[in-house]
């Protein structure tokens, strides 16, 4: 009788042990699978950059002869120096930087002012104007492209720096909307107290609202900067002189003229991509949080 129970309990014990071992084994397999998947995902996102970097430091014959995954044996800067001396990539880079900085500064400051007026000031017609802004969010960019071009042609603004950033520099509804939603969460009392102390609205915005609202301002700044840097279609149609080209237009033109000179064209692509990677490396935490922030607000 007692022996029966002991064998039974022993059986239960060994059963438990194998079960535990099996589940630990299962966990191990699952974890290995998990990390294998992570590795594949990481490779998918990293490989295109890595290969372009390799290629940009190789001469053309090496690119044609070697595997794209092989690092350059004797890295050379010659592709970049060709782009910057024989072609105008220095100019393109400077143009892009100039236009993007102006666009970003204007868009953020003017959107912020608009957002503050909508969020915390009262004036007649406020709600209907805000609705108007919201409605324009629904309008795809491509729809306004042709009439905007006509407007700019009639104002003799084609082929100027102004043309490139003007449509986006005065503040855009999306940015106004994002910041307005954020400003609405700041208690009214803060501003009323400041007003009673004789603070002007400008000072309230600059000294009180801006410091509290750093996350959303960084979000708006990053979105504007990325948009300006990557913008292609609009600069493509409003400029047609080489000296005004931004990087995207320069790369596209280069691509249609020298499409198979992979050494130069990939180096050119990196001139546009690397600053964004650096921006990302510095602000990655902000960027990841920012994007989530834009989602929650919807």
């Amino acid at each position, binding site marked *: 009788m007692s022996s029966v129970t002991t064998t039974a309990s022993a059986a239960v014990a060994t059963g438990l042990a194998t079960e535990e071992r099996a589940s630990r084994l299962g966990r191990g397999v699952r974890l290995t699978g998990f990390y294998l*998947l*992570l590795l594949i*995902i*990481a490779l998918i*996102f990293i*490989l*295109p950059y890595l*290969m*372009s970097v390799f290629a940009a430091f190789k001469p053309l014959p090496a*690119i044609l002869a070697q595997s*794209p995954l092989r690092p350059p044996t004797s890295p050379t800067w010659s592709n970049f120096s060709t782009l910057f001396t024989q072609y105008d990539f220095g100019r393109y880079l400077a143009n892009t930087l100039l236009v993007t900085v102006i666009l970003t500064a204007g868009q953020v400051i*003017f959107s912020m*002012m*608009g957002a503050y*007026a*909508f969020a915390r000031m*009262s*004036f007649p017609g*406020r709600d209907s104007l805000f609705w*108007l802004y919201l409605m*324009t969010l*629904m309008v*795809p960019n*491509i*729809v*306004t*492209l042709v*009439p905007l071009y*006509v*407007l700019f042609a009639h104002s003799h603004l084609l082929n100027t720096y102004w043309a490139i950033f*003007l449509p986006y*520099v005065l503040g855009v*509804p999306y940015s106004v909307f994002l910041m307005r939603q954020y400003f609405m969460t700041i208690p009214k009392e803060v501003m009323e107290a400041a007003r009673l102390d004789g603070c002007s*609205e400008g000072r309230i915005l600059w000294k009180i609202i801006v410091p509290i609202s750093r996350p959303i301002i960084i979000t708006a700044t990053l979105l504007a900067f*990325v948009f300006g*840097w*990557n913008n*292609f*279609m609009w600069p493509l*149609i409003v400029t047609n002189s080489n000296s005004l080209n931004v990087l*995207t237009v320069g*790369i*596209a033109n280069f*691509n249609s003229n020298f*499409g198979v000179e*992979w050494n130069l*064209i*990939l180096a*050119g*692509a990196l001139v*546009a*991509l690397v600053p*964004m990677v650096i921006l*990302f490396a510095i602000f*990655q935490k902000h960027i*990841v949080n920012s*994007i*989530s922030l834009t*989602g*929650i607000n919807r």
Partner: protein
Amino acid sequence: MSVATAPTAALPKRRKTAAAEDTAERRRTIRTAFAFLAPSLIGVLLFLLIPIVMVIGLSLVQWNMLTPMKWVGLSNYVNIFEFDGFGHSLIVTLYYVILNIPIQTAFALGMAMLLRQKHAGSGLIRVIAVLPFLSTPVAMGVVWNWIFSPTTGLVNQFLGHLGITGPAWLSNEATAMPVIAFANIWQYAGYNMLFFLAGLGAIPLSLYEAAALDGAGKWEQFRRVTLPLLRPTMLFVLVTGVIGSFQVFDTVYVMTAGGPGNATQVASLNIYNTAFAGFRIGEAAAMSVVLFLIILAITIAQFRYFNKRITYEIA
């Protein structure tokens, strides 16, 4: 006299000045508010509202920007389908959207599910996956041109090792559009993953525990708990994704320029060519209006579908 009446007259007078000050103050606030609003309001008027009215007007004329406009009524709307292949462009665009959106959304959701639990390394992958969102589409287009190039590209070299001769991806009618769709999936999947991660984070764990107690397996839990509660996120991701995809331009311009033949002649490329290569402003404007109406209709349909489903879920 003034001395005698002073105490009685002063009171209403002071009240009056206070009221006057109040309206003056109010007027000042309104002025300040409009001053704050002015730049963005001018921007919205000049660069959004006026162009929308203009595009409708322009769609009713024939105009090459040099000779005077000629009123042609609705005939542009017929001509773009008969002579400019806009019907084909719309079909090609729709094909692109269908290739792009479901895979991109599934990939983004899959990654979010995978990275949901905090394991060592998942934070790093989360960051890596978002990087493509920032990268210049035009520059990436060039990189994809190389990766998918017939002989020197990674893809065909890899296939070559397996003994397969890969196609000339971007100059093949069957493969060009899927490659372009792949490029855009690569670019935006990580970005959309962030929204799904935020959405997943908002689902209370107790719901899963309750479902598990009721005997729901992992798949059942995903279908009955995760998906229904992700609907607002799903709506956001789909609406923004669809609006963006219908306007795809940069990658197409750099990777195929509409070819081979006109297999990838998407709507925005057709608008671009009609307006800025052919200088047929009226036709391009008509195409813009049609594209706008289609995007609007699909957006409204998505809102309706998801709203209905959401109310159904609550009931």
